[in-house]
């Protein structure tokens, strides 16, 4: 999508045009889902967070600035929605651990691993899933989504220089895991209980 079309689309969404919303949805839905699914490692949770992201988008549609860049805006919201979910989940996990009521979730192969078309892709997905959240999100934004470090910095709320450092560390960490399979624990897909 070129910048001119993007600006026109933003203008129409601000005016409440549902057809314009559909165009934005078609352009970003799969990308946002991939980002959220790789962050949460759960298809069901990713779909919930994706819906929340779109609802926030339309709730704030009339407050969008005329020069809004849709990709950074939407990925920032998706990231914030994910952070909120992580915080809520941390509280739940702590409570459950204290009470010792919930069994460990069943392990299964990740849908990404199953869908991966090559062994290399499977290894990358596995290594990516084994990284800490902050490293994974940087690689997803810059590597998978093709954002510049400056754009990714805006999404994560850090300076471009801090983002470059974070990207360098995350990339090195991913490379180490790919070089040494023993460092990349076999990732197991978790279905998170609601």
């Amino acid at each position, binding site marked *: 999508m070129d910048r001119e079309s993007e600006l026109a689309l933003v203008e129409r969404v601000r005016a409440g045009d549902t057809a314009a919303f559909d165009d934005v949805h078609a352009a970003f839905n*799969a990308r946002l889902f*991939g980002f959220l699914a790789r962050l949460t490692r759960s298809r069901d949770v990713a779909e919930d967070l994706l819906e929340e992201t779109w*609802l926030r*988008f339309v709730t704030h549609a009339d407050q969008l600035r005329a020069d809004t860049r849709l990709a950074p805006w939407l990925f920032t919201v998706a990231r914030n929605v994910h952070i909120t979910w992580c915080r809520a989940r941390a509280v739940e996990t702590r409570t459950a651990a204290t009470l010792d009521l919930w069994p460990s979730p069943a392990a299964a192969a990740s849908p990404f691993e199953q869908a*991966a078309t090559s062994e290399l892709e499977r290894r990358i997905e596995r290594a990516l899933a084994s990284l800490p959240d902050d490293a994974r999100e940087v*690689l997803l934004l810059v*590597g998978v989504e093709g954002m510049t470090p400056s754009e990714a910095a805006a999404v994560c709320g850090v300076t471009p220089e801090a983002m470059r450092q974070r990207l360098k560390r995350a990339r090195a960490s991913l490379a180490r895991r790919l070089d040494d399979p023993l460092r990349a624990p076999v990732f197991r897909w978790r279905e998170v209980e609601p």
Partner: protein
Amino acid sequence: MTVHEQPDALLGALGRLSTPLPATARGARTRARCHGALARPRPRRARAIDRLLPVAVVAYGVIIVVEGLRMAGLI
């Protein structure tokens, strides 16, 4: 100055990963909910706050500046 970075094979490999697709039915439901939200006018109170907030911020700033000048004995 623009810094031209070398293409990175590892980041390039990430860019070629398969894109997972969300469930179609769920997407249709989300779109319907969003259409409903877009069609709904915002509450009058929220719109009034949107209009008044910048005015209040500017007025507060003016008061601070005037008070600062007055305390400095400039006016």
